[in-house]
């Protein structure tokens, strides 16, 4: 009787419970139910709440200001009009990296920043090349190293604030728009002088287009530098970027890059965007620059495994499966191939993507679309070489690299675009070299005279750095954190893309990861044991069958 009760309990209670647990855990429920449950992912809910009722109000209509109706002949004249009311704006702006192009947190004179001696493996450095590079400077007239960084009227308010979309700085005009129509030979486009009154009266908070004018075209073209930022983000849809998608939240850049006194939040060279990852619930005055700001550190449903990953894996690693998902991005730039001419003339050759693969001025390029990022430990800080740092030309030189390691609690596994290429270095001084690229024939500039020695001497002289005269080319790499182009939830990286033998994280060593790591010895021994058992029982079984049939024959014979 007792036994029967115990068994009965099992049959009627344990089995159905097991079944219910199985079906619930394996998600074989009605699809509608799943949808409802997944809506409740707390990180999503929180972020939605935080952004739901956004109301911006403005108490000034700039088209009604008399000061903006006067006749303007140049940018600085407009700036003076702006400063008439916004008295502190230029002084605030003067302290930011958008003006100095130097890391404000680096020690005085360290020259960290593109306005100093920091290098990259695109056009390398701005020294001696200012008029071309500073077409992306939010200022007017930075044409060489005599530019006056204290002149308030040289701040370009319009490039960030005008909303007509007609304001264009001339690509080689040191940040100035043209005063009369002019064709830029580099792209064949005609640049017209701006309608100063219209652009000045249109000002508002910066939109995606204002920021994108420079940041989508860094390196001199669409998608050249960043893999996760290009012109496709001007009017993105949700599947390209869940935050900026015009069919969704339609965020502007400054929605996350929240700004204080013209300081736009974000990483600046080795200074992380924020010292600590916090949510707005922990501190409502933090910039909204981190995913955690709005989504918290455990945004997934309670008990879901991804929540266990957020201490070591950045949100971006799973939620940005590929970068350059619409337009190709440059992955390789070999300066050593520059200088080849056709019929004595410089030429350009386009590849299958419609992007240049060779340019006499610049060398060889490679482009890629839909790129799987490379993953590295990252605590928010990137170290960048300057033209003064010693390098080892025997190896691939890292011009910049993410700082961080597994033991650092601020570090996460983070996705990067790694741009590789070859660039000149000094064989005697063992430093990277700054070439004088932009200039007319006879100026010593590479793009005028195609003479590396002269170009490198000119660039290093302008940067006030030594050059031995001996140069060669070295392979280098440069990193960009991938943080935009956040994909829709369903498109995020699947577990098995990393938890597999040769997956996305195959190169990250120093820790055990299920599915990726295994000991050849244990596996071999284990399978030998299993196969041995199988062989053993098979032999035993055949032996039994064999002897049984022999006995049968014997019995038959005896009969």
């Amino acid at each position, binding site marked *: 009787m007792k*036994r*029967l009760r*115990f*068994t009965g309990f*099992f*049959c009627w209670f*344990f089995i159905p419970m*097991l079944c219910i*647990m*199985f079906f619930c*855990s*394996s998600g074989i429920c009605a699809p509608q139910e799943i949808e409802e449950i997944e809506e409740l992912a707390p990180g999503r809910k929180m972020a939605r709440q935080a952004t739901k009722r956004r109301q911006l109000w403005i108490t000034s209509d700039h088209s009604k200001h008399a000061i903006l109706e006067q006749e303007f002949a140049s940018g600085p004249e407009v700036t003076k009009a702006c400063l008439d009311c916004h008295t502190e704006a230029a002084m605030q702006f003067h302290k930011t990296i958008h003006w100095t192009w130097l890391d404000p947190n680096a020690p005085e004179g360290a020259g960290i920043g593109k306005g100093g001696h920091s290098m990259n493996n695109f056009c390398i450095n701005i020294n001696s090349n200012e008029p071309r590079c500073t077409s992306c400077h939010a200022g007017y007239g930075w044409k060489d190293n005599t530019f006056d960084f204290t002149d308030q009227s040289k701040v370009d308010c319009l490039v960030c604030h005008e909303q007509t979309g007609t304001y264009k700085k001339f690509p080689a005009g040191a940040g100035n728009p043209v005063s009369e129509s002019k064709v830029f030979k580099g792209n064949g486009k005609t640049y017209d002088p701006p309608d100063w009154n219209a652009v000045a009266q249109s000002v508002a908070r910066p939109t995606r287009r204002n920021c994108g004018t420079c940041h989508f075209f860094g390196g001199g073209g669409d998608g050249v530098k960043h893999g996760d930022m290009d012109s496709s983000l001007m009017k993105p849809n949700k599947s390209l970027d869940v935050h900026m998608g015009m069919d969704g939240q339609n965020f502007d850049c400054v929605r996350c890059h929240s700004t204080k006194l013209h300081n736009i939040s974000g990483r600046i060279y080795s200074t992380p965007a924020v010292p600590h990852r916090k949510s707005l619930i922990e501190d409502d005055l933090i910039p909204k620059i981190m995913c955690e700001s709005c989504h918290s550190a455990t945004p997934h449903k309670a008990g879901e*495994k991804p929540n*266990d990953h957020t*201490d070591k894996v950045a949100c971006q690693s799973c939620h940005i499966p590929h970068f350059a998902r619409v337009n190709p991005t440059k992955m390789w730039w070999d300066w050593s191939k520059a200088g080849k001419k056709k019929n004595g003339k410089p030429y350009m050759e386009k590849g299958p993507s419609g992007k240049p693969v060779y340019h006499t001025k610049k060398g060889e390029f490679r482009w890629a679309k839909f790129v799987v990022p490379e993953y590295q430990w990252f605590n928010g800080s990137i170290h960048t070489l300057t033209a003064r740092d010693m390098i080892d030309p025997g190896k691939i030189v890292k011009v910049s690299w993410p700082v961080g390691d597994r033991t650092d609690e601020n570090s996460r596994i983070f996705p990067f675009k790694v741009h590789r290429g070859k660039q000149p270095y000094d064989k005697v001084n063992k430093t990277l070299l700054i070439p004088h690229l932009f200039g007319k024939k006879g100026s010593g500039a590479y793009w005028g005279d195609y003479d590396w020695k002269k170009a490198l001497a000119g660039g290093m002289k302008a940067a006030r750095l030594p050059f031995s005269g001996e140069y060669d080319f070295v392979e280098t790499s440069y990193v960009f954190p991938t943080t935009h182009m956040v994909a829709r939830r369903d498109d995020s990286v*699947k*577990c*098995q893309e990393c*938890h*597999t*033998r040769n997956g996305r994280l195959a190169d990250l060593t120093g*820790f*055990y990861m*299920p*599915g*990726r*790591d*295994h*000991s050849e010895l*244990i596996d071999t*021994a*284990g*399978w030998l*044991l*299993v196969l*041995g*058992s*199988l062989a*053993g*029982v098979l032999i*035993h*079984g055949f*032996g*039994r069958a064999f*002897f*049984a049939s022999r*006995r049968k024959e014997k*019995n038959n014979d005896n009969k």
Partner: protein
Amino acid sequence: MTTNNMVKVYLYTRFERFWHWVQAVLIIMLLLTGLEIHGTYALFGFERAVELHNFFGLSWLTLFVFIVFWLFTTGEWKQYIPTTKKLFDVIHYYCIDIFKGKPHPIRKNPDAKHNPLQRMTYLGLAAALLPTQMIAGLLYYTYNSWSVWRISTYLNLETLATVHLVIAFLLLSFLIIHVYMTTTGHTITAHVAAMWSGWEEIEEGAEIEDWEKARVRS
């Protein structure tokens, strides 16, 4: 050659059969999902494999608690008391006599279900291998709480995973041999049928010696 009459005895109670077969399914599913998590092949997809593995693992743990409870309350644990008596006879039987068609040196009986070799094997499984595997699995499952529980300095995921894997290989090897051994009854399917119905056919008049008995009847 003499043929003894076969009689049917009720050897395996309902709960015993229930846990045996559920455990069998759980072990097979755990091996299947576990080896996928190890990276040996792709079947369910890593995420689903982990979910299933956790589910089956926790189910087994729950079932195991009931099994142990049952073993102790019914006194059936005595079936697992190890002995070396006739152990070598059994080994000799499986190595040599079985090919000659000789009878098994130990007869099954409700009071002595297991031969000495089975006792050793099952005791080793139930008392050592399975609990170790379950503890290792539980620790693996709770990896993210290690630092909160202040045990992360004493544990290493790689070592733990290796222990879990080695036992998994041992269990897979056991499974193969165990399944094969079911074919060594008087017919190929006799033992499996007995584990399904509870009734095992044994030769009439088999003597059970006192030392074999699990239950001492009053």
